[in-house]
């Protein structure tokens, strides 16, 4: 660099900044920078990233910065002291370990690791050698154990808890009072506690909140019936099985056993106080099973809001809140929870035990039914609930179906005394709003201006409705089961119909909206001929089976709605009451084997609906179709994590663009009459078995542009008398872990007529080989294992199907809206694919005519 008007090169620029450039060179460079805007910019850019440089002016504000900040920093530094003291406590707890190991070894347990420790003691993960199973061992802390009374209580409660066997209560395998320290051996649960889940910051969906709440209520109900009160319901005592999602309550009765130790925890780490019922603060003798229901309420609140509403900075402040302050209604904290749920939670949180739900069974039912059980007039419509509404609803109707439903209602009524009255009252009000809007719509249809402003029409028609002369005739045609006049007579003034209270809207064939219902069952019963039901909202819980009698029912998602049904059966709670009514009813007792979630005797068409069965203790289908019925599903998702299938049909079914998944069963079970054809187009079928063909009559199956990801795509269960079942498959993908077609051991013929073109067979183990040499178009399939097929790459199982398709590069595929395989497959799958190569062939297809019916 020689002249001052020459720009600096990068090297000089850097050196100038760092001070490496000296003497005349530096002077010249400095002079140049003073005159050259370009080099000035370059210089600035070379120093500080832009996003930082823009913050430089804020340094000026530092002068005016709060004096508080210095204190804040000083205080935060002192937190370290607390950290130290808590680590000392942890270290003390650790010292128990070597002491106890011997005892456990003598008793046949191998300690694996410490999985938790608290004021009460330490929990270890261990292996029980004799049974080679994992267990959790809880050792009572020495401070507690040394108090012999506490030790005795610990053992007594643990033994009582051990006697309660319920899927939602941690199983206690053994209790030991051997010195030096008493301990108990429990079921080991792979997963996290609800507390950990909350701490992780990942939100819990409303569906999951309901599911967890119901399972907690079921567990509490079982415990309470055995006279066992938990006394310390809190997220840390609720375990979530990582594999099955099952909710497990742990530490029953231990809070009482260990006395007041939970109040001695120090500093900000106050956990339990935020979950205890106010009456327990006054003395544990006042606590009963309703204190657990309070705890359940706080947990439900916390699942929605992230923490107990009573949590405060200090233990004292927390206790003060528990004792004296009412938390804000949940729906004010979370605007997206439905009012009925908010009311339910707030009722559980009532300071007065008598004002809460009185049994866990009630809560279980209420959560399942998703009804407004608060008794408060949130819609302003329930001014005078009739004292005996149930009988009015029940004494009408004639079909076996209605009797069936009636019985269920009655058993429920007996079970939840005082609650159902309100429930039915709510139902009646909704029924009335339905009738009234029906009137409104008849106005519109009959009137000259059918396109009038709907909102105005709706509201004004509601106001005028009571005076309409023709409402009875119209209503009667829509209400098959119960005369509307009675309902009108019992109802109070009308309020607006809210979607979240009545998400099931009925439409007439001309497209006019007739009104809406709180549950699907009522909507189905009242759907007019040729009309349809639109479902709004997102989550719906169904607890009792719905029947489609000999009518045509059409159900679809409302615009922009993605309705999901979660099936959570209450059958277990109904049973004791069913027996009571056996003598009165002339029809066969509810045989659970007969009932699916949706039972189709007539005709059902559904579009855009998702139905999930997430429990694993339900063994029945999601949809069952009787021999004279029909089923047509379009763009639906059915998913069953239970041993029950998704569709069990004794008639032909038609599925378009559906996703059907069954983890532990066949996705679709067909047992149709001779010659009946079932059709699947653009469907995605996954699970253990794709389609199961059973029954003795010959069936035909048409598959077009479908994808299967199953152990076996098609499995034949019975010898069919009129000849082997026929499958015509075109442009479909069969991705199998076992084989494309399989036969049950009982099946002798092992025959299936298979025709088609353009299919892709992929999978790890076998493919079909035609050995018969053709027998009038019939093929005899045997399963032959291919040991290896090195030309194809290996795939991990949880792979997006689309990428599998790309791999096969088959342009004939146009499978629409295929989701991620990993979304549909529950839990980790066995790792077949990582050890087995894929084999692919489409050479085996015989291109025949479509088999005739």
């Amino acid at each position: 660099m020689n002249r001052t008007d020459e720009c600096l090169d990068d090297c000089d620029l850097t050196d100038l900044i760092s001070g490496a450039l000296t003497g005349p060179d530096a002077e010249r460079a400095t002079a140049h920078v003073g005159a050259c805007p370009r080099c000035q910019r370059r210089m600035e850019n070379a120093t500080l990233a832009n996003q930082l440089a823009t913050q430089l002016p804020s340094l000026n504000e530092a002068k005016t910065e709060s004096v508080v900040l210095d204190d804040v920093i000083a205080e935060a530094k002192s937190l370290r002291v607390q950290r130290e003291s808590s680590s000392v406590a942890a270290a003390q707890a650790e010292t128990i370990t070597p002491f106890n190991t011997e005892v456990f070894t003598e008793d046949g347990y191998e300690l694996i690791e410490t999985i938790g420790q608290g004021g009460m003691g330490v929990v270890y993960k261990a292996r029980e050698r004799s049974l080679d199973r994992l267990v959790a061992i809880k050792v009572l802390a020495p401070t507690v154990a040394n108090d012999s009374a506490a030790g005795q209580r610990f053992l007594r409660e643990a033994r009582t808890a051990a006697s309660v066997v319920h899927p939602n209560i941690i199983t206690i395998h053994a209790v030991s009072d051997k010195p030096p320290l008493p301990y108990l051996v429990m079921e080991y649960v792979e997963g996290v506690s609800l507390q950990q889940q909350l701490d992780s910051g990942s939100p819990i969906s409303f569906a999951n909140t309901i599911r967890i709440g119901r399972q907690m209520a079921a567990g509490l109900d079982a415990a309470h019936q055995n006279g066992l009160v938990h006394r310390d319901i809190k997220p840390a005592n609720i375990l979530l099985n990582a594999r099955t999602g099952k909710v497990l309550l742990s530490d029953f009765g231990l809070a009482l056993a260990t006395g007041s130790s939970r109040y001695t925890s120090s500093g900000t780490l106050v956990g339990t106080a935020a979950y205890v019922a106010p009456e327990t603060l006054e003395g544990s003798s006042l606590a009963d099973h309703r204190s657990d229901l309070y705890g359940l309420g706080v947990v439900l609140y916390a699942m929605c809001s992230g923490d107990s509403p009573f949590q405060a900075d200090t233990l004292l402040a927390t206790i003060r809140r528990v004792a004296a302050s009412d938390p804000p209604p949940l729906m004010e904290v979370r605007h997206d929870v439905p009012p009925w749920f908010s009311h339910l939670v707030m009722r559980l949180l009532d300071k007065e035990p008598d004002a809460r739900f009185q049994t866990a069974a009630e809560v279980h039912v209420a959560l399942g039914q998703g009804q407004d059980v608060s008794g408060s007039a949130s819609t302003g419509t329930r001014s005078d609930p009739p004292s005996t509404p149930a009988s009015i609803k029940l004494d009408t109707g004639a079909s076996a179906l209605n009797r069936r439903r009636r019985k269920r209602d009655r058993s429920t009524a007996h079970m939840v005394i005082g609650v159902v009255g309100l429930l039915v009252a709510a139902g009646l009000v909704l029924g009335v709003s339905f009738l009234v809007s029906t009137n409104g719509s008849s106005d519109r249809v009959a009137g000259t201006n059918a396109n009038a402003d709907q909102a105005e029409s709706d509201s004004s028609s509601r106001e005028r409705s009571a005076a309409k002369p023709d409402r009875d005739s119209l209503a009667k045609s829509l209400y098959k089961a119960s005369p509307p006049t009675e309902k009108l007579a019992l109802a109070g003034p009308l309020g607006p119909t809210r979607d979240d209270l009545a998400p099931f809207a009925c439409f007439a064939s001309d497209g006019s909206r007739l009104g809406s219902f709180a549950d699907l069952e009522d909507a189905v019963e009242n759907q007019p001929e040729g009309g349809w039901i639109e479902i709004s909202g997102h989550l719906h819980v169904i607890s009792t089976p719905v029947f489609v009698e000999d009518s045509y029912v059409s159900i679809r998602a409302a615009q922009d709605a993605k309705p999901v049904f979660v099936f959570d059966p209450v059958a277990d709670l109904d049973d004791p009451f069913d027996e009571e009514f056996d003598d009165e009813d002339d029809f066969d007792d509810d045989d659970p084997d007969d009932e699916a979630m949706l039972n189709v005797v007539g005709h059902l068409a559904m579009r855009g609906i998702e139905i999930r069965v997430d429990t694993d203790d339900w063994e029945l289908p999601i949809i069952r179709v009787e021999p004279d019925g029909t089923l047509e599903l379009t763009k639906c998702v059915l998913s069953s994590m239970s041993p029950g299938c998704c569709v069990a049909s004794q008639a032909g079914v038609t599925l378009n663009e559906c996703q059907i998944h069954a983890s532990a069963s066949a996705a679709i079970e067909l047992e149709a009459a001779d010659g009946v054809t079932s059709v699947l187009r653009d469907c995605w079928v996954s699970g253990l078995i794709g389609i199961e063909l059973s029954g003795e009559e010959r069936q035909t199956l048409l598959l077009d542009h479908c994808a299967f990801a199953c152990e076996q795509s098609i499995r034949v269960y019975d010898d069919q008398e009129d000849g082997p079942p026929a499958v015509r498959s075109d442009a479909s993908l069969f991705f199998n872990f076992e084989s494309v077609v399989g036969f049950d051991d009982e099946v002798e013929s092992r025959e299936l007529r298979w025709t088609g073109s353009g299919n892709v067979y992929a999978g790890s183990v076998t493919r079909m080989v035609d050995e018969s040499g053709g027998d009038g178009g019939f093929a005899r399939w045997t399963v032959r294992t291919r040991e290896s097929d090195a030309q194809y790459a290996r795939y991990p199982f949880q792979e997006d199907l689309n990428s599998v398709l790309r791999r096969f590069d088959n342009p004939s595929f146009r499978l629409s809206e295929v989701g991620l395989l990993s979304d549909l497959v529950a839990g980790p799958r066995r790792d077949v694919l990582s050890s087995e190569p894929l084999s692919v062939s489409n050479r085996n297809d015989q291109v025949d005519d479509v088999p005739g019916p």
Partner: protein
Amino acid sequence: MSEAAPTRASLLLRLRDQADAEAWSQFVEIYSPLIFRFARRCHLQESDAADLVQEVMFEVAKSIAKFDYDPKLGRFRSWLYRVAKRTMSRVQRKQSPEPRGVGDTESLRFLASVADDNNALEELWDQEYQRQLIHWAAAQIRNQFQEATWQAFWLTAVEEQASQVVADRLGLSVGSVYVAKSRVMKRISEKIREIDESH
């Protein structure tokens, strides 16, 4: 500065050692003001913001052992953001039963307005984060420069005065003002890089 500041990785690693008081002090010095200002920007009252800092720092103290250091860009920054946000909403909820004056309502309204837009909140956080890095680094290096150099930097970069004006005031050439400003900024940048490798 008598000793080299720890790098970000080693500071976090040292935090896990509960006996390392110095690492904790340094961590608190760097990050407390950030959380405090972030809370203030979210319209929390001063005393609530102060409480929030304690809450977040307590959370960090509890969970730092679980935080696996990953030099991937911004990971620590967003981890701290999540802790801060979570704690803040918890504090907010606890206070909502008894609103204490305008600040609370305002901050609730503010949080509600950004609740749907996580990006907006995180952007705010990122901004405050950058700002805190600058503030901290500037304070750390202040003593390494002569008064005139610092003034040249301060008047131009911070007070955003024209370099000619600054040059006249300090009796320097415009070129010298630029060099002085660049030197300080360079040093700030180096300082920041010691604790945040993303810069």
